[in-house]
């Protein structure tokens, strides 16, 4: 069993805007690309050109349909990755201490040299956010690009997770939720940022911003005809419309 820190100085995480995400998967492959050559072992693919290709992704996007009681069905695109929970069950379940939550920023990481690939953490995570690398036999998960966000070899503006840097719609935001003035805290406050599956008691750091209400109900049109065209004829309409110039 592994202990969680009682307190972290920062609570780094993502605010993900479900009103804006178009489900393009840019974050999925940017993450794959960076982490394939970044922290820890590569994210391998098995049977890459075969019948059942299966590789490790630290971030995936799902699309769900919602059928409201009235009105048209809707589609919600939902990116899913580690939420860097305060009460992370994947950490406490780890038998070797390989899974841990960093004291300084709250990032949940796997120390691969201690990971025995038992898979308990993936079982304990209610979000399905961990994936075992079949080749190396170690557990992989979102690192919040810990090798980017402090990386002095990168320009300062690039010190953010690869998924955030690449998101074409700007639906992903990175920052410190412990700081109420940070952009992510402000966004979460303004847009009703919510926890994913709060009943699980995991206290996720990442917040999702809910889709705005859609498909306004029918209402009387404010666009009144200038006059009764059938009664006045085209000439009457023309006089009226040109009288406006």
């Amino acid at each position, binding site marked *: 069993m*592994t*202990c969680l820190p009682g307190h972290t100085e920062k609570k780094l995480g993502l605010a993900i805007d479900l*009103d*804006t*995400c*178009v489900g*393009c*998967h*840019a974050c*999925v*492959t*940017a993450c*794959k690309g960076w982490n394939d*050559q970044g*922290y820890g072992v590569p994210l391998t*693919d098995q049977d*890459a*050109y*075969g*019948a059942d*290709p*299966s*590789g490790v992704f630290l971030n995936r996007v799902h699309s769900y*349909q919602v*059928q409201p009681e009235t009105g*048209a*069905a*809707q*589609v919600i695109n939902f990116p899913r990755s580690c939420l860097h929970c305060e009460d992370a069950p994947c950490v406490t379940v780890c038998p070797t*201490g390989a899974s*841990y939550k*960093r*004291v300084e920023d709250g990032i949940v990481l796997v120390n691969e040299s201690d990971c025995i690939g038992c898979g308990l953490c993936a079982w304990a995570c209610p979000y399905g956010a961990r994936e075992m690398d079949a080749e190396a036999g170690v557990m992989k998960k979102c690192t919040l690009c*810990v*090798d980017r966000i*402090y*990386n002095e*070899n990168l320009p300062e503006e*690039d010190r953010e997770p*690869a998924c955030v840097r*690449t*998101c*074409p*719609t*700007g*639906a992903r935001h990175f920052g410190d939720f412990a700081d109420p003035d940070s952009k992510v805290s402000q966004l979460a406050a303004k847009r009703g940022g919510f926890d994913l599956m709060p009943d699980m008691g995991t206290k996720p750091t990442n917040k999702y911003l809910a*889709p*705005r209400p859609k*498909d306004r109900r*029918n*209402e009387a*049109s*404010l*666009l009144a005809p*200038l006059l009764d065209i059938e009664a006045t004829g*085209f000439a009457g*309409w*023309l006089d009226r*419309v*040109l009288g406006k110039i």
Partner: protein
Amino acid sequence: MAQPKIDTSPKVSDEVRQTTCYMCACRCGINVHLKSGKVSYIEGNRAHPVNKGVLCAKGASGIRQVNAPSRLRAPLRRVGPRGSGAFEEISWDEALGLAVEWLGPLRDTAPEKLAFFTGRDQSQSLTSFWAQNYGTPNYAAHGGFCSVNMAAGGIYTVGGAFWEFGQPDWERTKMFVLFGVAEDHDSNPIKMGLGRLKARGAKVVGVNPIRSGYNAVADDWFGVTPGADGLLILSLIHCLLAAGKVDLDYLARFTNAPLLVRSDEGAEKGLFLRDADGKALVMSGGALVPFDRAGVRPDLGAVYEGHRTVFQHMAERYLSPDYAPEAVAARVGIDASRIRALAADLARVAFDEAIEIAQPWVDFRGDRHDKMIGRPVSFHAMRGISAHSNGFQTARALHLLQVVLGTVETPGGYRFKPPYPKPAEAHPAPHCKVTPGKPLDGPHLGYPRGPEHLCLDASGNPARIDKAFSWENPLSAHGVMHMVIANAHAGDPYKIDTLFLYMANMAWNSSMNTAQVMEMLTDKGEDGEYVIPRIIYSDAYASEMVAYADLILPDTTYLERHDCISLLDRPISEPDAAGDSIRWPVIEPDRDVRGFQSVLIDLGARLGLPGFVTPEGAPLYRDYGDYITNHQRRPGVGPLMGFRGDGSEEGRGAPNPDQLQRYIDNGAFYQAHVPEGADFYKPWNKAYQDWAVKIGLYDAPQPYLFSIYSEPMRKFQLAAEGFGTRQPPEAARARLKQAMDPLPVWYAPFGDDAASYPVHALTQRPMAMYHSWGSQNAWLRQIHGYNPLYVPTKIWQANGFAEGDWAKVTSPNGEIVVPVAHMAALNEHTVWTWNAIGKRKGTWGLDPDAPEATKGFLLNHLISELLPAKGDGMRWSNSDPVTGQAAWFDLRVRIEKVDAPTQAQPVFPALDLKGVQV
């Protein structure tokens, strides 16, 4: 336990090389990281004008193109029957020698017997220059089966269309309306724009039968029935006109609304009233005057000797009760009240929320304006409304909607990107005159202004193999590529000798009626020779088309080549700047492959084509990079505008030997910024016109009026009515009269004739796969590995479908058996699937049991390139009658539940391409 110490500042890479992505047609800037000389990571270039640092799923997966198992490794000569996949590797000298052996004698005798068509080509200014100097009239790229209706509809109406021509004023627009299946062009800029609108809570409206992707985030979704968009748009125009919510000042000053349409019977009826110099006339202050004089205030309501203004013709047509929301609702599939609400929203934002910029400007009449008034409503559309047989008129209608709202080239509306605005009359007319051994008499493609510009031979038959610019489709500005193989096989209008294709998978997903196309490619005549005798193909990967070619010229990946994204072609301009860019070899290929453009230049030199050899007959250019640097289309104007002359000259200037290096040092692109005060009202703004001349976009200012009423179209209609010397065949008259209506019109798509097939069937390209012509990418195929047919709730329930079921889908052209999936957020008469996920067994380096080949499928089998025979006995092509655009989305089907087969039907024998890959 102590927390592990980790390195949070690892070295990222040895080197970053900046070039241009080619995982789709978007042309984003990329940073290619290299470790030990190998690509280690690809990210967006923050300084790049197209993507400003972001990158899509495809772009970030480009690293997997280089080591794809499907890559060709050397030139190939076919040694078995076509379609067998039996090839032998040959040297480049042998390959080019063979090509010269075929093409040289042909040029000297019958150059039209070479048909050279390119697919998703981004080097059309080179490929067309080559074809023109070879002398064949048979050249085009893939626009005819993509989105020519949108492009041509825009050019003929406002002098530009969407994507490369122009885009919403993302910074200022308050309401954005997206029409059609449009998760494609242009990929990242649309996503970035949507993100900007969402960040400030601006309204996004989606009009699309399918609520996926961009439509999923739309605040209001209108699930229009396919092919009815034009009717919806004209109904919106009806509502706006009835309420007087149109921009009358804009219409009077900047459009042909005040021009007088001749009412006298005869050969000039319906043309504009002109003075002796040919200048169109308007009434101003009670006097008849040329439209462009200083101080003219054109009168929209004028009548002169019975000739009424365009405005009156337009208003009378669309005020008709036929266009009332109540009259169109059932056909459009949207409640009348919702159509009225959308019209009211457009009017409110355009007029009640208008914006003003305190920027004085002077128009082409010399009239000074002290501010710029903006109508902050904007639109975007591409293939969804284009790929119908009524797509040209629908595109015209959409541009008309923008025009009556006064949004085009005003703040908050739609903005042109240089070299646009550029109306039809500023483009070349098409050319087709063949002289053996000599170049063609001018550029192949262009914009006809009347029947005199059709490409017909002395007998009035089509001069081109694809019948572009013929009476069947007079305004086929991008050619009609989807008809090339069928026509060549039928010898209609004539037989050809050599089919030369680049990057066009015509033996699979880029052809209608795929199974029969494969037969056409392998069919032999009585003499035992192939009906299409020779096929040369260039591709980087083992695609389906490779198996059907006789000679393969293997291309590189986009990371190993030069390319030029040029103002002569399809540049990367923004509304505030002209822009162009390059690709350059950031890595060297590890095999015997060459960039196609360099090969084409080599071939041009070996054939001795003008423009490719010195007066002594020596090669003029070493390779494509050398051509990009030194070729001049007009004196001082070459493929790239930046760093010309001594390196400081922009637009015009002598070739600069350091130009490519300067581009590389600048992130692989260049921008020439539109000066202040020239950034809106470009077609009429003197400051913009002068700047465009200065940097070489035009040679003289060319202001013009928007064409609400299209005089060129009226000229074709007049021919159909019997006027003029060039006359259409009798069978074409009725069709031309309807299709060439000079005011936007809606008619039912021709596919609707298949009334016993009640369901519309569409395809979309997924955002993570779209235009990934490179390969089935190892990462991306884990996201989209197969494609079910998505079925709306009503049809799902009526058929008793359950998860895992399969359906037989039947059209007038055939049947397929495919897996189905339920989708509620879908027009209730429409089914759809992802396009081009399905692959033929044995291709693209995939295992034969890959899901793309067992469960994946194409709708193409259901779509014929010809319409069923009609009363006139003709089988017209399945195309728009104006432009010839392939009417992919007219498809109508029947659907029924069947027992699950072992794999999607039809199944084709596996191709054996193992010998040619990696």
